[in-house]
């Protein structure tokens, strides 16, 4: 059986004006991020909102570490897909396999890059981590297991997985033929070769799957085994990191799959079954995470260790309440959205609908108010006060959250009709929650979790931190987009 391919599939090698414009926008965001980072290199980390814990009333870790954890979490997607497809033989998920693997690789690269700006001495960081590495430090696992081992294994898997397509594409004349020939490296897709590849990929999947748990746990242990930080010191930290990694990774994969379904017009291959499967998995993981959250809250508040209670109060009704409830709300809304497609068939209810104009108004108002709030918070004329939340009145945040909820609610009729729309909404919402929860894990334990009575501290990220993070996101999107243009993002279909 030999497969013939007439031309490069899935938009590979075709560059439109819109594409170049998109690349230009991404490049300018990356450039802005690099500029922001250069300010930090020149002036030091004083340009960030980070400060010393204790008498300086700050947080030593902030946005950079939170997004490092987030990016590592997103990398969950690739391994999961590899495991599901190779070990559980879920062949119907094959079309998203490469998307997931690429997401893993890009996310891990971003994770490595987001540690760098957190270091006061980045060059030393690279040199000394190799020269003086100490396995006793929980960071060791982050650098060996996650960034090196995980990334390397994923790259190998990715390479092997793509060899068949490279061999197919190397047969047709195109400017990229040399590249495909290099990737295929002598592979000709004979039955014997295919069999060998299947076996290799199977064993490789078995080898990577333990990383699914260990790598994400390692990052949890960076926080979970610090007895001096209330809120971090918890057995649940490592398992919760694994589950949250799954939530954000699968969520982002849903969004990416929907984008390709739309952009490439591949409704047949990226069929609804995939979204149903991933949506179900995501809903399950969200449920587990919500359960973990309840267990954690009950444990910390019931016995009433003074520092734990102080921290929990700061989370539930203190300066971090808005972020906590937005994250929790996003998780619950995501769960409902993901379940909605099943509701009409289970129970004969009609999901109430809103006027589309109302939806747009609520959404625009929420986005506009958010932007104004953000600008206001970072206005240079405002001096942040230690201990206080933001300078704006508290109700502004709640109004914003309310508008956002209305916006999501008004889409519910669509979610009930379309499993793809529900998946996208769920995926976006859980990623908002993932970022929020990462920040809530990293920051409050430092500002409100001091065991000596230093009093509450505060942390507000500066434009430098936001710019660097935005630059990282743009870099990730850029890498992903460019790859999609030189290699098929889905396995080349067999033409019958």
């Amino acid at each position, binding site marked *: 059986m030999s497969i013939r391919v007439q031309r490069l599939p899935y938009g590979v090698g075709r560059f439109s004006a819109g594409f170049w414009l998109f690349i230009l926008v991404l490049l300018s965001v990356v450039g802005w991020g690099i500029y922001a980072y250069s300010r930090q290199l020149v002036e030091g*980390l004083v340009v960030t909102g980070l400060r010393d814990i204790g008498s300086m009333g700050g947080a*030593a870790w902030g946005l950079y570490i939170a997004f490092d954890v987030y990016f590592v979490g997103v990398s969950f997607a690739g391994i999961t897909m590899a495991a599901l497809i190779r070990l559980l033989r879920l062949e119907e998920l094959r079309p998203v396999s490469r998307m997931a693997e690429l997401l893993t690789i890009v996310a891990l690269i971003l994770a490595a890059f987001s540690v760098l700006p957190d270091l006061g001495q980045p060059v030393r960081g690279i040199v000394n981590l190799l020269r003086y590495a100490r396995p006793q430090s929980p960071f060791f696992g982050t650098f060996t297991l996650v960034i090196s081992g995980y990334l390397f294994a994923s790259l190998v898997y990715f390479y092997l997985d793509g060899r068949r397509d490279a061999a197919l594409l190397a047969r047709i004349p195109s400017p990229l033929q040399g590249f495909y020939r290099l990737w295929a490296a002598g592979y000709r897709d004979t039955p014997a070769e295919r069999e060998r590849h299947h076996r290799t990929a199977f064993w490789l999947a078995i080898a990577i799957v333990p990383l699914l748990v260990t790598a994400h746990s390692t990052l949890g242990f960076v926080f979970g085994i610090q007895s001096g930080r209330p809120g971090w010191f918890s057995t649940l930290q490592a398992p919760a990191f694994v589950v949250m990694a799954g939530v954000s990774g699968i969520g982002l994969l849903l969004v990416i799959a929907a984008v390709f379904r739309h952009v490439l017009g591949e409704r047949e291959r990226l069929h609804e079954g995939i979204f149903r499967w991933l949506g179900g998995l995501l809903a399950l993981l969200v449920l587990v995470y919500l359960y973990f959250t309840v267990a954690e809250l009950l444990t910390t508040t019931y016995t009433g260790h003074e520092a734990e209670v102080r921290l929990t109060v700061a989370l539930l009704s203190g300066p971090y309440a808005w972020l906590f409830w937005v994250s929790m709300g996003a998780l619950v809304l995501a769960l409902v959205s993901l379940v909605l497609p099943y509701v009409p068939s289970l129970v004969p209810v009609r999901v109430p609908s809103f006027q589309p104009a109302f939806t747009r108004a609520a959404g625009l108002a929420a986005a506009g108010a958010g932007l104004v709030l953000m600008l206001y918070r970072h206005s240079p004329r405002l001096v942040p006060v230690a201990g206080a939340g933001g300078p704006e009145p508290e109700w502004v945040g709640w109004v914003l959250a309310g508008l956002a909820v209305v916006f999501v609610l008004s889409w519910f009729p669509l979610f009930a009709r379309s499993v793809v729309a529900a998946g996208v909404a769920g995926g976006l919402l859980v990623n908002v929650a993932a970022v929020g929860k990462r920040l809530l894990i990293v920051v409050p334990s430092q500002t409100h979790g001091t065991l*000596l009575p230093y009093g509450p501290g505060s942390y507000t990220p500066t434009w430098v931190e936001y710019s660097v993070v935005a630059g990282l996101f743009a870099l990730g999107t850029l890498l992903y987009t460019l790859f999609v243009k030189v290699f098929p993002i889905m396995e080349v279909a067999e033409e019958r």
Partner: protein
Amino acid sequence: MPRYAMVIDLDRCMGCRACMEACKVENNTPTAAFWMYVFRFEEGEYPNTHIWFMPRPCMHCDNPPCAKVCPVGARYKREDGLVATDWDRCIGCRYCEVACPYGVNYFNWKEPVRNYYLDWGDRDVRRVTNGRTPPYRNPDLDRPYGEEKRRVAGGGRLKGVVEKCTFCVQRVEEGLQPACVANCPAFALHFGDLEDPQSSVSQVLGRKHSWRLLEELGTEPRVYYVGAHSPHPESRQIEEVKARV
């Protein structure tokens, strides 16, 4: 090998914060960094209130959470008990800072040229000092110390590394007391060798009941307190230092 420890007699401490000042002058620390910090506490309800003071240097723990988590071994425990920071090796990840339950670590957030206790390059200061390096800019801070010959004494305030109380290793290795101890007008601070029964720390610890901060965490601090009690939720901090870089 000596076993260094500090004993802080809270019954004698009058909260003058001279130790904080002495530390800043000796170690030339940047603004808002307090390797030695003195809590001023108030307890009770009016009119039954009382005020007490608690100096907080680095605890130089025997089981230091900071040294455990350091990914490159820049923070380490010396044979004589000092927990030292090798600023020549530190990569500035601040893991030690988040791991420390006492909040004693201070990061060099920027080039502290204009940020010292005194800016020695300032024109007005130079007029007074005649352009000479004043005695307070201590070249001893840049030298390597200990058998392992590592740069652990405060140093040149390199941007982007973590520093903290060194127990004034540059003074201790010359047989002197740390600056805070030497300058305490109330003799509330003692420093010495626990192995030596005649040392003031051994004497005070033998005579009085002592406790250590957050002992329940198992960090085994080398700083012992005598008198008063450890701070509890009712201890409100007054006149706190709110300095930020």
